[in-house]
């Protein structure tokens, strides 16, 4: 028995190593790490638009660590998106209240939390009016004066109030803080577009596209811009790319239909209008699409 002891020990070590290899993740490749925490699971579920599941995961993360500001903030965003998709108005209102309550809880623990302040500002502006909301944006900017994200969010708020000049100034400040800020670049493009400076807007969007080439937000805006500049072929390139990424956006289909119609591609226009009408949740817009479709069909019948 004793003679075999070294061999048995070696065998045991080898066996242990073989078992430990996959368990310990020695052979794990980057990017395929298993999700272990509730927070990361929540992010995955959020990306999959499983709002209920994501909210549950974030709640578990908060239960594990009540001071987890990231989980609480993401929970609030998730609840807002769930409210946006809810069909029942009362349920949507309740979800929005919960979202705001989570942010308030977060601000009680961390009064200068940038993202919480920005989202409370947006929600307050929608609930109580722009003045009340702007106060929160000012607070966020006082706490984080060099934050490009905060400036960009404020610029977007100003754009919603039709204050394009102020928005452009805030976007410029955002880019002064961080020249590569995607949100700041898009906000600048939006502001320039609102001011009627199409070339400057196109320049800003091109820069944003260079930063994030697969952002449907920018692709759509770029397509709209090129269309308005009388360059439908260029617009069509952007809108097609955007549709590849986000094929269920009714606005994109509507724009693609407009572009196709202007180019005399009536059948393409009909196709996109159909998609827009089918995907559009707003009945009034869907009715407008129906009327446009009827007109397009008359045109098709006339050309047959």
């Amino acid at each position, binding site marked *: 028995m004793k003679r075999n002891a070294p061999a048995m020990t070696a065998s045991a070590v080898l066996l242990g190593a073989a078992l430990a290899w996959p368990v310990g993740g020695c052979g794990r490749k980057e990017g395929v*790490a298993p*999700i*272990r*925490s509730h*927070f*990361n699971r929540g*992010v*995955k579920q*959020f990306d999959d*638009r499983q709002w209920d599941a994501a909210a549950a995961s974030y709640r578990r993360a908060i239960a594990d660590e009540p001071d987890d500001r*990231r989980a609480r*903030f*993401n929970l609030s*965003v*998730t609840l807002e*998106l769930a409210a*946006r998709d809810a069909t029942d108005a009362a349920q949507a209102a309740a979800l929005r209240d919960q979202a705001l309550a989570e942010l308030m809880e977060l601000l009680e623990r961390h009064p200068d939390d*940038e*993202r919480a302040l*920005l*989202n409370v*500002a*947006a929600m307050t*502006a929608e609930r109580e009016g722009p003045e009340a*909301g702007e106060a929160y*944006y000012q607070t966020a900017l006082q706490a984080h004066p060099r934050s490009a*994200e905060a400036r960009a*969010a*404020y610029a*977007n*708020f100003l*754009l*919603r109030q039709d204050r394009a000049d102020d928005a452009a100034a805030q976007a410029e400040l955002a880019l002064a803080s961080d020249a590569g800020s995607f*949100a700041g670049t*898009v906000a600048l493009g*939006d502001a320039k577009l609102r001011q009627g400076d199409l070339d400057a807007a196109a320049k800003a969007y091109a820069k944003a596209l260079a930063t994030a080439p697969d*952002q*449907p*937000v920018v692709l*759509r805006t770029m397509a709209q811009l090129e269309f308005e500049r009388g360059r439908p072929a260029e617009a069509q390139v952007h809108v097609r790319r955007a549709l590849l*990424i*986000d*094929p*269920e*956006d009714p606005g994109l289909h509507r724009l693609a239909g407009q572009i196709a119609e202007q180019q005399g591609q009536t059948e393409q226009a*009909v196709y996109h209008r*159909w998609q827009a*009408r*089918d995907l559009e949740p707003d009945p009034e817009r869907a009715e407008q699409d*129906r009327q446009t*479709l*009827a007109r397009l*069909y*008359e045109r098709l*019948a006339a050309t047959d």
Partner: protein
Amino acid sequence: MNAYTKHELVTGTFVVIAAAIFTLFAFNILDLDLRLGSDVEPARFTAEFTDVGSLTVGDKVVFGGTEVGKVTAIQIKLVELGEDQAAALNLRGSQPPARAGQRAQVIEVGFEVDDPSLRLDPATASVFISRTGLLGRDTLALDPGRLTEDAQPIVELLAGDPMAYSISGQERLGFDGLLARAGPILSAAQSTLDNFNDRVLTDDNTDSIRAILTQVKSATARAEEFLTAAEETSVALRELTGDVQTRIDQGWPRTREAIESIAELAANLEAQVQRISDEAVEVLDVAEAMVNENRPELAEATRRLRRTLFEAELLARKVRSNPSILVFGDDDPLLDAELSDEAWLLRSGRAQPYLQRDERP
């Protein structure tokens, strides 16, 4: 000779009993017959298939879910293809296409039927390969064919006959076959839908279409009336013309009066033609307007039907590639991306959510 102690005998007995129990258990698990010899002489058959799937020797032969025999042999055989066999090969994409009468290799399955009560008609009986469950094994399913009142049990009839009777083997369709058969139908349906986009009726426009049809029917009835009247008028005109000719020839004094009558009839006829023509144009206008007006609904119905066909085909392909989704469900979404939420968050003045944390130890 060794003398065994009591202790050894008891231990040995337990070992033997345990071995016997395990043997019984193993036979039961493997569904094997413990009888060393059967008093039933089985009837032997063969059947040909172009594809036997996972069927192997020893698999069950079943009738109505009851085991009546087992597969005894599977071998390749060179035969002249029948029409069904050629069609089955072509459904699986045989290149070049197989033809009936062409020599080709098929699979011959030999099987025995040992159920003493089973009656079957070898001339009309057939077998086909069936799967007992989604994850189960293939079995050979038996269709006993047409039976007469005085038919004898097959085991009794063929007892002791060493020759195997040949039974028709029905080819399994499978998902490939289903898709191959459904493909042209789907294409035809799609083509029809494309070509007759505006002829699909929906609940919404049934009333409108019915109104059009009623008007068309009414116009048709009026057209028939008109044609009858025109024919009568034409006859009358011919008679009158002949009469007038005769009278003129005879120097009838009232020729002018007759000619005036003809002119009156002609004018009357023209008025009728105009009226019918106007009505027809009106009906066509209404029909055109209704079709144009309802075309979006018709096209939507078409689009939804086409989408349903697409999803049905997609499901068939998924099930073919992974039948377990029927048992465990399918949480694989359709290949359509969801709406982007980034635009809303960005442009509403909100901050983006946090991304995943690094979990590396």
